[in-house]
């Protein structure tokens, strides 16, 4: 783009940093109000059961208990998606998974609430259950909900198949016929949790027919609209404030406790606080999907892909969902292919309903594709980066999911990876190097921004997206850049749902892109208004002034006639020139730019124990324009680390009884700091033509490449390839013993 920036690309401290490191920031569980009750939830110990009887009378009679609710306390909800959400928050007639809520109490203390739960009498009739995706697709499998089967699912699968999608172009059979080698492999990946450190928490407070809700969420407008519908309220009767958030990664883009807390508060007439334990987080919030996949790729001897076909079967828990579509769309997005097809099936099981997890649906699909590509490179003795470069999508490529790409950074990432010293560094015994490409779409969506200039010239920017990765910093920087003022002169706050218009949720790597565009447009409005005011003061034409570096200057034949007026000077006089100065923007920018990344990882596998050590890791990613490079690096590193956990140890483990066996961080193993090397990062900047500063989203792409990169590295280090994740030590050792 060649544009010079003053603020963008620098790394000022984040405005919310001091509050967070000094413990003053208020997270979901930090708000306490007078007269507040504590809520607790009774959860199913069974994977699938009919609720024969549910007697809460003894619990309700316990001194200190102020409300007990069950499904009977909620009216029927018309909207199908919201009805499913309600039934996920509170079981209706049947419990559908281990951990499914079926009653809740509000009491004067946590211990009284817990004691009350023990007094609730439930009679269950256990029903057949299924937790594995392949088993759930089999005709004759226990069906979670009748009548939800997708019309294109086919006759050979059970009624648990609630989605079928197919993307691609060309003639794959003709393409496979052109190949020198065709390789088909089947893969499985486990369900992984987002692993946010802050458990889900909220505080609901009914006042007459209106209510306030304080909540740890990625989207308080979404929470408002779902909860209002479930509680039978107008959206305007519910004001939702987003607390500071201790991680979400997609997991906090729906509701679990919130409608329950509101219903308890309405019944008790008092504020009700609810905080999940870690065990509840694992048993009853949404992990991402587990998967079973087949990928077939044909290649010429010199590495050109002739055809590619993927069949993706995702397990998404006990309610209909539609996320395999993202997997089918993204599977082959990195490559310029003449003949390609990706199909996907969404399947219900007796597990908690899935919810988004960073690039939802893409990591597993791309893992399978990149693993088959790597095995082909091994068989044909080709360089893995050369082969990817040979087949890489570029500007003008018709993508495997339909659209034709504008400027994209995949080739730039691949070339940077090739040239990086990591790629040519020597390896020792039992060590192996793996690479993978990754992709995510990114998203625009609805946005509202209000920019008010205070009398001292400070810019008060109100936006509607919870700050989950440093967005207050990046949004303030974009405002400062556009206005030509110092970063410190901008104060960005996240408004509650009553303060500003609707904004979509903080997801889809959309905030820096979308709120950025809205901020730039609001700033342009402020500049125009300032020019008008100053022209009036100087008594010259409005087009005879211009905005330069935070001040209005006379221009044309008036140039030099007046000393420039700064924003602070203009603001100080606003009361006498027409009132407060502000700009705002509401809209739905839609030109988000896709983002590609490439990761290189070196692993060492202990041949006696199957333990994998990550020796070295380098992530390359196209940010479009890195507004605040430290936070871009943070996203790249965080995504890589979550991918490392998914690849090596993280998994939901269900017993034969359908009960989750590892509902805690001891046995659900996310990586700890000592498991990891420094994650090196290389930011590539190929500007997104759809954003004034070139911004793409950066939050999600980085979790996509690690799964295959580590799998490919382990295959080369251990001399044996695994086709399932996680590659935990018992699995690697067993594969080495049999390989």
């Amino acid at each position, binding site marked *: 783009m060649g544009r010079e920036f003053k603020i963008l690309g620098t790394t000022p401290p984040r405005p919310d940093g001091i509050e967070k490191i000094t413990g003053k920031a208020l997270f979901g569980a930090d708000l306490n109000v007078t007269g507040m009750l504590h809520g607790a939830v009774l959860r199913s110990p069974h994977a699938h059961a009919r609720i024969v009887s549910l007697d809460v009378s003894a619990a309700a009679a316990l001194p200190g208990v102020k409300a007990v609710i069950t499904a009977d306390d909620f009216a029927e909800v018309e909207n199908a998606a919201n009805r499913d959400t309600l039934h996920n928050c509170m079981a209706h007639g049947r419990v559908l998974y281990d951990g499914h809520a079926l009653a809740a109490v509000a009491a004067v203390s946590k211990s009284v609430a*817990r004691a009350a739960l023990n007094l609730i009498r439930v009679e269950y009739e256990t029903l057949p259950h299924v937790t594995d995706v392949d088993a759930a697709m089999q005709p004759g499998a226990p069906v979670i909900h009748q009548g939800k089967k997708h019309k294109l699912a086919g006759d050979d699968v059970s009624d648990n198949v609630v989605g079928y999608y197919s993307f691609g172009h060309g003639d794959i059979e003709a393409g496979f016929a052109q190949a020198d080698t065709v390789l088909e492999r089947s893969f499985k990946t486990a369900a992984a949790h987002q692993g946010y450190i802050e458990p889900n928490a909220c505080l609901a407070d009914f006042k007459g027919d209106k209510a306030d809700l304080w909540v740890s969420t990625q989207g308080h407008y979404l929470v408002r609209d779902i909860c209002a519908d479930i509680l039978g309220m107008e959206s305007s009767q519910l004001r939702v404030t987003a607390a500071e958030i201790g991680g979400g990664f997609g997991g906090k883009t729906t509701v679990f406790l919130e409608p329950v807390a509101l219903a308890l508060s309405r019944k008790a007439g008092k504020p009700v606080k609810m905080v999940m*334990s870690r*065990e509840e987080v694992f048993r009853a919030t949404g992990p991402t999907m587990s998967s079973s996949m087949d990928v077939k790729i044909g290649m010429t001897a010199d590495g050109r892909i002739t055809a590619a076909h993927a069949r993706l079967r995702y397990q998404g828990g006990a309610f209909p969902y539609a996320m395999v579509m993202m997997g089918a769309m993204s599977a082959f997005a990195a490559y310029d292919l003449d003949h390609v097809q990706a199909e996907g099936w969404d399947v219900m099981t007796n597990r908690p309903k899935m919810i988004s997890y960073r690039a939802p649906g893409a990591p597993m699909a791309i893992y399978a594709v990149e693993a088959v590509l790597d095995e082909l490179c091994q068989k044909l003795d080709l360089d893995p980066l050369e082969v990817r470069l040979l087949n890489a999508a570029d500007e003008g490529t018709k993508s495997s999911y339909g659209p034709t790409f504008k400027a994209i950074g995949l080739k730039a990432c691949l070339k940077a990876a090739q040239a990086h010293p990591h790629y040519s560094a020597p390896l020792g015994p039992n060590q192996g190097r793996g690479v993978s490409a990754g992709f995510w779409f990114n998203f625009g969506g609805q946005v509202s921004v209000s920019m008010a200039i205070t009398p001292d010239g400070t810019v008060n920017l109100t936006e509607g997206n919870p700050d989950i990765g440093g967005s207050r910093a990046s949004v303030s920087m974009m405002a400062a850049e556009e206005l030509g003022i110092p970063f410190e002169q901008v104060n960005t706050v996240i408004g509650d749902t009553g303060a500003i218009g609707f904004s979509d949720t903080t997801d889809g790597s959309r905030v820096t892109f979308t709120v950025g565009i809205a901020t730039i447009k609001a700033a342009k409005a402020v500049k125009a208004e300032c020019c008008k005011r100053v022209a009036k003061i100087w008594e010259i034409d409005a087009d005879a002034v211009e905005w330069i570096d935070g001040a209005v200057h006379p221009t044309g034949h008036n140039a030099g006639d007046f000393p420039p007026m700064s924003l602070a000077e203009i603001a100080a006089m606003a009361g006498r020139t027409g009132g407060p100065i502000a700009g705002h923007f509401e809209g739905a920018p839609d030109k988000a730019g896709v983002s590609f990344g490439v990761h290189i990882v070196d692993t060492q596998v202990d041949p*006696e*124990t*199957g*333990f994998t050590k990550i020796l070295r890791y380098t992530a390359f990613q196209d940010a479009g324009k890195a507004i605040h490079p430290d936070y871009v690096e943070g996203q790249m590193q965080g995504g890589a680390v979550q991918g490392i956990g998914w690849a*090596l*140890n993280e998994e939901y*483990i269900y017993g034969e009884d359908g009960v989750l*066996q*590892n509902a805690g961080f*001891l*046995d659900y*193993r996310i*990586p*700890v700091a*000592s*498991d990891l090397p420094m994650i090196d990062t290389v930011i590539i900047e190929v500007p997104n033509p759809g954003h004034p500063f070139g911004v793409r989203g950066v939050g999600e792409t980085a979790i996509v490449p690690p799964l295959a990169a580590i799998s490919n590295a382990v295959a080369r280090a251990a001399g044996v390839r695994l086709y399932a994740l996680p590659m*935990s*030590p*018992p699995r690697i*050792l*067993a594969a080495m013993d049999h390989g």
Partner: protein
Amino acid sequence: MRYHVANSLSEAVEMLAAEAGTAKVLAGGTDLLVQMKSGALVPDLLVDIKALEGMRDIVPEGGGYRIGAAVSGAQMGEHAGLRALWPGVVEAAGLIGSTQVQGRATIVGNLCNGSPAADSVPALIAAGAIARVVGPDGTREMRVADIPAGPGRTTLEKADIVDSVFLPARPARAGDAYLRFIPRTEMDIAVASAAVNLTLDAEGAVESALVVLGAVAPTAIMAYDAGTALVGSRLEPSALEQCAAACSAACNPIDDKRGTAAFRRQVVGVMAKRAARIAFERAGESL
């Protein structure tokens, strides 16, 4: 629930004996408080002994050391004399929990919690450690090896309090070591573990060897044949392989969420071989 800070051991024993409901002794509390918080355990009486005299002391005794019931892992790690005499025990105790938990976690609590995967227990058994038990009938000594009885169970009687563990003196040419396998690098629980305690003769060959395995049976177990396989050797590969094979034969592991029985059987021998090498070097010999 009643919480009582004991004024003396005899008072603590009396209170525990008199309690009709569930009574628990609190020293470090790193297992107990977690169980209470999760709702798995709701005691009627908690007797806190950590403030009693001697409970937080490491005292030289007969060429060895007596370690009080409330001595933390961090305290052991900072004690140069103990570290020099029984480095394997100290490193095992140092693996319990995080840095923060190390400030509270105790080896007596680790023993009394009854976990088959307790890190310090195999090392204590290999060291020949003796527990001093104060009970309603007075004070007695028990081998640490005789205390674990199964997952969550010990041979201790109601109202028994382990007030200390004694680690004996040892010959000059001796060394011990403890290794565990975990899927991560810290903050985890042993999937299979081995403690090795070696004494060498004047020529540098193994004179006696004790190998104790953790997390591969209902309790920590002594693998006698694994120790015997090392006696007379200088840890030549053949001796180590015999030792590993004897470990695999001695153990009785289960399949669970943390690993398969087959994996544990194989890896426990690897841990024993590697621990033996470290113990051998600590005894002053190089491989």
